């Protein structure tokens, strides 16, 4: 039940932002990125009380609404209704469909598995249930976990086998996409497509939302060019460079074998908000220390030595 500032124009209704992303929901982020890549100006509105809905995200303008559970998803519906189509002329390309299948089935499955099963839903709590009371959250969490397992075909008997299959497919998909992408800016020449939106969303979610212990995250970080690709596009699509609220992706360790090493990179492209805050606080602290010393000295100087004796504190 969030109020919007503007009733006219385009509005995308998604789940709430978190983890430094404009929306932390893996179903909503592709639509957001797609509209940004298409450079369509739009407002963002949030629904934080319906975590188990398949209608989100939805796009609205006037009395037109494109729900995510119609016509193959909100992006497909926007293409079909002629609102915004980044994939015109790409359908004829043979690789389009195969890449689409890789991203929308294997990678999507892997992400769903990792979110609800692999990491036991650790991130899901913040994404879906931050604004719901604990009682409701608990029930819906179990419901959504169960539904995810059903959708992925996971049973007690085949759990391990299915896990290996999912991770193997994800690895293969990363490999193929990494090879396909190289150092290009987009998957298809120099033009953005809906596949870039889906793929970028997948990478951002995997790196920024999933915990560092996530197997899928570690597999993704092995491919440096994918991380660089996401880093570049993220700057364009998500936040203006000066007000970025999340650390650049390449500052994360590029290999999971370097778990214990320092995460700071020598070449920072921009200062993060956390660092700015830290510096400000440090300045205040130093100023306070200095002031305390000055006051102490002035008080001590004004008091006679006979009346007061203080122990020196370190």
């Amino acid at each position, binding site marked *: 039940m*969030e*109020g919007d500032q503007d009733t006219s124009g385009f509005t995308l*209704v998604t789940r709430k932002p978190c983890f430094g992303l404009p929306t932390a929901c893996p179903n909503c982020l592709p639509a957001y990125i797609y509209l940004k890549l298409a450079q369509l100006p739009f407002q963002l509105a949030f629904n934080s009380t*319906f975590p188990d809905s398949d209608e989100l995200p939805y796009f*609205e303008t006037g*009395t*037109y609404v494109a*729900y995510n559970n119609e016509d193959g998803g909100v992006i497909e519906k926007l293409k079909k209704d002629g609102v915004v189509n980044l994939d015109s002329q790409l359908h004829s390309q043979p690789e389009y469909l195969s890449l689409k299948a890789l991203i929308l089935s294997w990678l999507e499955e892997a992400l769903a598995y990792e979110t609800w099963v692999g990491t036991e839903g650790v991130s899901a709590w913040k994404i879906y249930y931050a604004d*719901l*009371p604990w009682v409701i959250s608990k029930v819906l969490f179990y419901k959504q976990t169960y539904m995810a397992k059903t959708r992925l075909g996971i049973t007690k008997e085949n759990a391990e086998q299915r896990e290996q299959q999912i991770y193997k497919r994800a690895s293969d998909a990363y490999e193929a996409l990494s090879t396909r992408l190289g150092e290009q800016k987009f998957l298809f020449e120099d033009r953005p497509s809906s596949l870039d939106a889906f793929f970028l969303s997948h990478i951002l979610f995997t790196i920024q939302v999933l915990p560092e212990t996530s197997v899928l995250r570690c597999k993704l970080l092995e491919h440096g060019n994918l991380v660089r690709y996401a880093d570049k596009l993220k700057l364009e699509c998500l936040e203006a460079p000066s007000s970025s609220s999340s650390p650049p992706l390449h500052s994360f360790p590029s290999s999971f074998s370097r778990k214990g090493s320092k995460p700071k990179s020598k070449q920072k492209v921009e200062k993060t908000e956390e660092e700015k805050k830290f510096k400000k606080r440090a300045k205040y602290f130093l100023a306070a220390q200095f002031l305390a010393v000055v006051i102490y000295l002035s008080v001590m100087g004004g008091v006679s030595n006979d009346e007061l004796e203080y122990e020196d504190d370190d």
Partner: protein
Amino acid sequence: MANPADKPDPNLTSPDEVELREDPEDINGGEEEEEDEYEGEDDDEATASKPQSREDAAASRVNAQNLFRRMGVAPVPVRVHDVIVKGNEKTKDHVIEAEVDGVRHATTLQELLEAANVANSNLRALDIFDSVKITLDAGPPELPDTTNVVVKVVESQSPLAAEIITSTKSQARSSSLEGSLKYKNIFGHGDIWDTSLAYGCDSSGEVGLGLYLPRLRGRPSPFTSRVYLSTQDWIKFSSYRERALGVSLGVLLSKNHELGYTLAWRNLIDPTQMASRAIRRQIGHSLVSDLKYSFKVDERNSALRPTRGYSFVSTSQIGGLAPDSRTLRFLRQEFDVKYAVPLGFYRSALNFGVSGGITFPWGSGYKSRASSVSERFFLGGNISPVCSLEGPSALWGFKTRGLGPNEPRREVEDENQSGGDAYERDFVGGDVAVTAYADLSFDFPLRWFRERGIHGHVFACAGNMAELSGNKYRNFTLNYCHILKKQEHDRAKSGFFLTFSTPSS
């Protein structure tokens, strides 16, 4: 569940249901020999003792007439020595004694008879006895002018009762047909457990388990509790369906004061995916934890067709009473004032009424947050405002939810609407609403109509709603409405139509 808290009017109870039996020596110090007995006529099977011989019966009749004569002249002083309860195997003594307690305060025979009548009604209202008989017996011989009150009850042979009734529940907000299974007096405290299934006229439904206690911790405050799962369908009017799973508790503190608490998980969905923007923003889950206080005074001579008296109802609700700040936070206040003035001919009366209400959210960001559509006010429907005590909701001349702020629904290119009844707008309700009416009701000159309770009425009503951010059937009225003014999208109806008048519980 029909509210057992509605006790039958003791004045309507036949005085024959109280039996008076006195031994001669104890009244007036034993000066006169009196053995007065008049038969009580129970509604159910008679449990009275066998009638005595014909001569004794004649003597009793004479003595009874004497006693009546004495009672007519002056108060007959008497004191209640003891209350004896008989016939209860399962029911606890204190439950019965609590209902009969009023007799202890009687100082005269007249008062005692009246108190005994009231006690009889109270016990019948518990709905756990097949028959109740109160007998006034002579007190101990050493204490003159005293009497023992003997309460003889016959507990229900079969504690299980099934019934099909029409009723209204606050959660359902509409009339409904309900089937229920009741299990009475399991623990002997007058407790009534019921399982019910209700289906409403507006496609709403409810399944529930309830408990009714006539007294709470010894206080004369009936207590009800209910666990329910309900669905209310507003798709046709506002494009959403409301589901709730919750528990509600209610205490009738006194005749005028009622306190209730509800904890419910509420879910608003739009299965048609055709909702307007305002309703789309409302879709989702919420936890409701709210306290409701009602103050009600109803001095009208009839709830269905008042011709004299006034009524005042004020209902205050506060939601969000939970340690979790994410529960639904709102404040809601309603009031309703009615006044009836008799005009003296053809049982006619002038009825006036004003009702209003306001709701708004509280908590951080309350100014920008929209109120929950479930807590808003909607006007219109087939309920007569003369009878409804539910705050601003009833208004002649407009269809259910047919008035007030509205928004266009989603536009789709394919034709999948259901034809005739398809509306293109959602009525989203108002945060503040006010209605007023003036009604002149009268009997028709023909006796045929009077005998059947058919009366006529001429009325004028007005209502308005703004954003800051129905229900019972019994009587049948035919109305002719001429709309004086309406806004562009209000769904009004002029002409002849039927409304149903029914008192609010």
